[in-house]
């Protein structure tokens, strides 16, 4: 994931190529993951029905209980209404006009190892800068000193195409595989924990996901184990008109530790695409999970055509004493972002942290934040949110801090900063605070500011272009959050901040 260099095809202008084409290609620079992979796909028929749910389940070779679980979710979903309380404005989504399952044809028979994976798929990830081949390991060469290795699960549209370093992780007792594999190989774990943090009845999008999720990642860290490397999942939406509904389940057993990274990209398409994921984290006594996201789904063009509708439910359950979770997110992509990674601080002395950078440019809309539910005694939470709005974008922080009657002597600190670039965008902060005991303390600080002309001029007078100046000032504004990211991701996130603000000034 550290590899930011992506070798893109060189732009060659031949005779007879019209101006429009050149301009179109040139304008693609802003979103550099906008290309699509031309690959033969198998689709389930368009639309959603019990038959589709059964088909997804049978494609994954699932046991009866999981099919029933999905069908129950589907039936419940039919009676639910899409929520509209967020500050988001988008046309009605036609849930029957989507494909719910798309898989590369070559994946019909699942490859047993990465060597059997279609080279086109491997090339796609290479182009994205995601190393899937365990070259060092295969060649029997140790990675250079100091270079941390990252294990990757790569999800392409509806299926996982491969997971690296599985054998080495298994030596440490760590299970890292696709969720469809986990259902087969570790049914007892999946059955015990799936839906235990985000129940299938939770909300409209989570219920939809429960019915149709096709793949995703599964992680189990056994008691007392520090996961020997960073784990990551790389999501790629490729097929057109196809929703991606992945499900991630991470179980960190007592005294264990894992750092998990997630990255997302999608090709440029004129139509909107739906992404409704569910992430569940189960954290037991004295265990700790760091979950970092760099979300860079295609944001749509300047006029708001195309882009991903990102409706995600992420929740961590600090189920036992002294459990710790840290969510860090850098949200730069998607046309619509609806996402509130939450912490249920159930165990006494458990801790939740949420660090967020949300950038909305052009016609993007983001409504994102967190929920800190304090149930245990002496629980602590910290929220640092940095929202940046540019163009005509709207950016909302929405957060809940709730101190229950039994959560005595608990603490929360919230800091919410908004930065505006230009005069046509908006920043909104909507904090909800509920305190039901007398010994807890909640602090909330919020600021809203504009990018300061004096700062920009100072930078420019030292030789930086206006865009470099904006990127530098904004990266400074986000520093606290960038520092919370693992180093490999922090570099990528910094350059992403600069890229996503291109064209926001001048």
């Amino acid at each position, binding site marked *: 994931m550290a590899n930011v260099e992506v070798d893109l095809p060189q732009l060659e202008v031949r005779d007879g190529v019209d101006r429009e084409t050149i301009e179109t290609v040139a304008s693609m620079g802003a979103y550099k993951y906008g290309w699509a992979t031309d690959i033969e796909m198998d689709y389930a028929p368009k639309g959603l029905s019990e038959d589709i749910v059964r088909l997804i389940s049978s494609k994954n070779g699932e046991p009866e209980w999981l099919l029933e679980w999905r069908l129950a979710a589907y039936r419940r979903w039919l009676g639910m209404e899409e929520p509209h309380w967020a500050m988001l404005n988008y046309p009605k989504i036609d849930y029957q006009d989507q494909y719910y399952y798309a898989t590369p044809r070559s994946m019909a028979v699942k490859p047993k190892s990465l060597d059997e994976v279609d080279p086109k798929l491997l090339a796609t990830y290479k182009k994205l800068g995601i190393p899937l081949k365990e070259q060092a390991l295969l060649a029997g060469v140790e990675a250079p000193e100091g270079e941390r290795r990252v294990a990757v699960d790569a999800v392409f549209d509806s299926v996982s195409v491969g997971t690296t370093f599985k054998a080495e992780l298994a030596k440490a007792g760590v299970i890292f595989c696709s969720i469809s594999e986990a259902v087969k190989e570790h049914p007892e774990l999946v059955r015990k924990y799936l839906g235990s943090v985000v129940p299938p009845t939770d909300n409209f999008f989570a219920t939809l996901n429960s019915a149709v999720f096709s793949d995703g990642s599964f992680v189990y860290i056994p008691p007392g184990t520090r996961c020997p490397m960073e784990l990551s999942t790389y999501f790629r939406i490729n097929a057109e008109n196809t929703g991606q509904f992945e499900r991630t389940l991470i179980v960190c057993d007592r005294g264990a530790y894992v750092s998990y990274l997630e990255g997302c990209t999608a090709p440029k398409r004129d139509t909107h695409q739906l992404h409704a994921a569910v992430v569940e984290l189960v954290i037991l006594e004295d265990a700790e999970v760091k979950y970092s996201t760099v979300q860079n789904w295609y944001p749509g063009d300047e006029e708001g055509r195309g882009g991903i509708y990102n409706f995600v439910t992420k929740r961590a359950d600090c189920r036992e004493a002294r459990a710790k979770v840290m969510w860090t997110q850098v949200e730069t992509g998607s046309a619509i972002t609806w996402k509130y990674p939450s912490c249920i601080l159930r165990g006494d002395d458990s801790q939740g942290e949420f660090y967020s950078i949300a950038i909305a440019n052009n016609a993007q809309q983001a409504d994102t934040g967190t929920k800190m539910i304090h149930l245990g005694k002496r629980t602590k939470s910290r929220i640092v949110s940095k929202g940046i709005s540019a163009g005509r974008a709207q950016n909302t922080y929405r957060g809940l801090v709730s101190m229950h009657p039994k959560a005595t002597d608990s603490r929360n600190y919230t800091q919410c900063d908004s930065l505006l670039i230009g005069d046509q965008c908006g920043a909104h902060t909507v904090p909800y605070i509920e305190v039901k005991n007398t010994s807890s303390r909640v602090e909330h600080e919020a600021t809203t500011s504009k990018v*300061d002309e004096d700062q920009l001029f*100072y930078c*420019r*007078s*030292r*030789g930086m272009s206006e865009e470099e100046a904006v990127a530098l000032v904004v990266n*400074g504004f986000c520093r606290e959050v960038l520092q919370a990211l693992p180093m490999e991701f922090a570099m990528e996130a910094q350059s992403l901040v600069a890229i996503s603000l291109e064209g926001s000034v001048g």
Partner: protein
Amino acid sequence: MLEIKNLHVKLEEEDKQILKGVTLSIGAGEVHAIMGPNGSGKSTLSYVLSGRDGYTVTEGSATLDGADLLAMDPEVRAAQGLFLAFQYPVEIPGVGNMTFLRTALNAQRKTRGEPEISAGDFLKLVREKAKSLKIDAEMLKRPVNVGFSGGEKKRNEILQMAMLEPKMCILDETDSGLDVDAMKLVSEGVNALRSAGRSFLVITHYQRLLDHIKPDVVHIMAAGRIIKTGGPELALEVENNGYADLLAEVK
């Protein structure tokens, strides 16, 4: 090096004429000082030369080695070798001083078509330059100008100047807010940079800075014009008699 001819400048917002025909010629390696009472247009001149928004040039020209300065973006002027040491250096929270310096240096090199400086070479260079200005490693790590004392801010400006190696340096009231020791440090920093190919325009209110940075030419500015030009002795005259006599002379 720097040629300013009959420069007329208006403040955009208030539609107010600030500079009313400034003419100035600074040769390579020369140090010129501009003195003048408050509101005479000294700072405006430095901002217009470095390309700040909010000013309209209504007449006249300014060139750097023959190139039209006023037609360039601020970052191009910087890459061409113009540097302004700010009277009030700006704070940039969250951006480390080192990061700022390196980004600026590489941006200029890029504009000039030169390769970026390597991390190792940069580190060596910045440590060496910082040492002579008594800027410690801790100050290099802190966010740009955030929580810096007045003296630290000015030393930091001189550090930037030393790193970027401009050919035309404008110092805008660099002595304001400095105690005697800080003024000595800053002046030594500036003097160390004096060379045959590098010129300075020192804008100051008081003569005392010119005890440390000895000018070749002194200009007195009032009401948007340069009303008198002379040698270093002119600064002493102002120090002893104030501006009143000079202003009366012109009227």
